């Protein structure tokens, strides 16, 4: 008699094949009854992807999305039961998926959707008020190092991925996108994720700040105006949660 592990291994293999596992039984129509399991496994994971990447689904259509998801799920099953994290490899998969090659921006739209999901579930942190930020900077802006809200993400695309993502929101007008490239600052405000288009040089500056570069050292990557604009964008959106001097 096969052991528990052998039984499960055979059952698992049959979920992805046309064959039935050995040793199962039913009152009849065994194939149809076993296929309840096959269908649930196949559909619920595709549904989880569709929930996380709704704009991608809208762009390619439901049927194409489902086919794509089926292929992705078979090779990249979730490694954890926390499905809000599932699909991290999906943007890279789309970038190399030949049937989607005519949509070069698709993977970047998926990156925006992934960042939105991550921002939504990121840790909570109380932002500093603009007055508190200015008082902590004091007379020594050069040594000031900011801590950004844990939800802050950046997506840069050589295409107009941000406009295309926006056009594919429910109720959005289908206006032709501008030529790329585009960059977005993505974060959580109140109970929703926000996608804010920003110029690429501002994005680079914010990335430097996020990695701990003090304000005085940002001159290596941006001019004073750019640093000022980046700083005020973060301040206006209440994305600075800590500030110290190094």
């Amino acid at each position: 008699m096969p052991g528990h592990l052998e039984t499960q291994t055979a059952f698992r293999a049959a979920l992805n094949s046309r064959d039935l596992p050995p040793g199962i039984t039913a009152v009849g129509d065994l194939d149809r009854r076993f296929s309840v399991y096959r269908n649930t496994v196949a559909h619920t994971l595709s549904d989880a992807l569709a929930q996380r990447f709704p704009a991608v689904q809208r762009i390619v259509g439901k049927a194409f999305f489902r086919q794509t998801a089926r292929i992705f799920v078979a090779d990249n099953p979730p490694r954890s039961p926390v499905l809000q994290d599932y699909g991290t490899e999906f943007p890279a998969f789309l970038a190399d998926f030949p049937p989607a090659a005519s949509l070069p921006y698709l993977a970047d739209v998926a990156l925006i959707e992934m960042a939105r999901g991550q921002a939504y579930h990121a840790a909570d942190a109380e932002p500093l008020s603009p007055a508190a930020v200015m008082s902590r900077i004091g007379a020594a802006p050069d040594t000031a190092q900011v801590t950004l809200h844990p939800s802050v993400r950046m997506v840069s695309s050589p295409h107009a991925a941000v406009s295309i993502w926006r056009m594919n929101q429910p109720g959005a007008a289908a206006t032709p996108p501008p030529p790329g490239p585009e960059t977005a600052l993505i974060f959580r405000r109140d109970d929703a994720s926000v996608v804010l288009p920003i110029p690429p040089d501002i994005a680079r500056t914010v990335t430097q700040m996020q990695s701990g570069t003090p304000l005085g050292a940002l001159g290596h990557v941006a001019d004073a105006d750019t640093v000022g604009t980046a700083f005020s964008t973060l301040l206006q959106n209440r994305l600075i949660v800590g500030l110290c001097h190094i």
Partner: protein
Amino acid sequence: MTQLPDTVGIGFKRSHYDALRTTPNRLGFIEVHAENYMGDGGPPHAQLDALRRDYALSVHGVGLSIGGAGPLDTDHLARLKRVCDRYDPESFSEHLAWSSHNDAFLNDLLPLPYDDQTLATVCDHIDRLQDVIGRRMLLENPSTYVTFESSTLAETDFLHAIVGRTGCGLLLDVNNVFVSCTNHRADPRAYLADFPLAAVGEIHLGGHDAEDLPSGPLLIDSHGAAVADPVWTLYAETVAMTGPRPTLIEWDNDVPDLPVLLAEADRAATILDGVRHARAS
């Protein structure tokens, strides 16, 4: 058995948050899936923190794979502990099923043979889980579509043995009883007569889909419809035997507006009231 009140609750869906906050509280408790509260922060936790102040809470895990042949996922055990520590729920429950294999999560509640080997594995897993989360759990009976030729124990005997060995309680899903017994041409009343009813700490009621096959009906546990009439009847018969028990209306797919769920909850509450009156007189 559980600290949930012997009244009726509903599975909390995020789309109902605003309606739930503005509806006078006539529910005994809410239930959430543990896996939906494993992020670091954001609206899910903020909402549950707020609801927790008004409602008793049941945390229901859907991904630990207690019936899996391999060892439990220690990362997932730690996540479950974190959810239990944070929300201190009145009840924690999981399933008699497996859902992961070789590190892949399959997102379904898959069946296992019932024999001495699987019994030992499931009991080890329950012992480990109860140790980690520091509380007693309830184990839910599954909906099944096939059985195993190698099974040597009836599902109810398997559950009796688990309760005896681990001290866990049971979550009796009456819809699952009806679905499985119909699929396997068994008598749900005979199943319930053999079920360890004294260990039942919570009851689930959900909807199912039906399909006619040449071999007989195929019922599928869909959690996407109202509770079926024969399931209501079985429920009334069950609580007549057990006395009032915490009862959950479970509706996870094609979720209707809150009033539809509350109407189902009222129907269950009326049945529980009837049992209370019958026992008092």
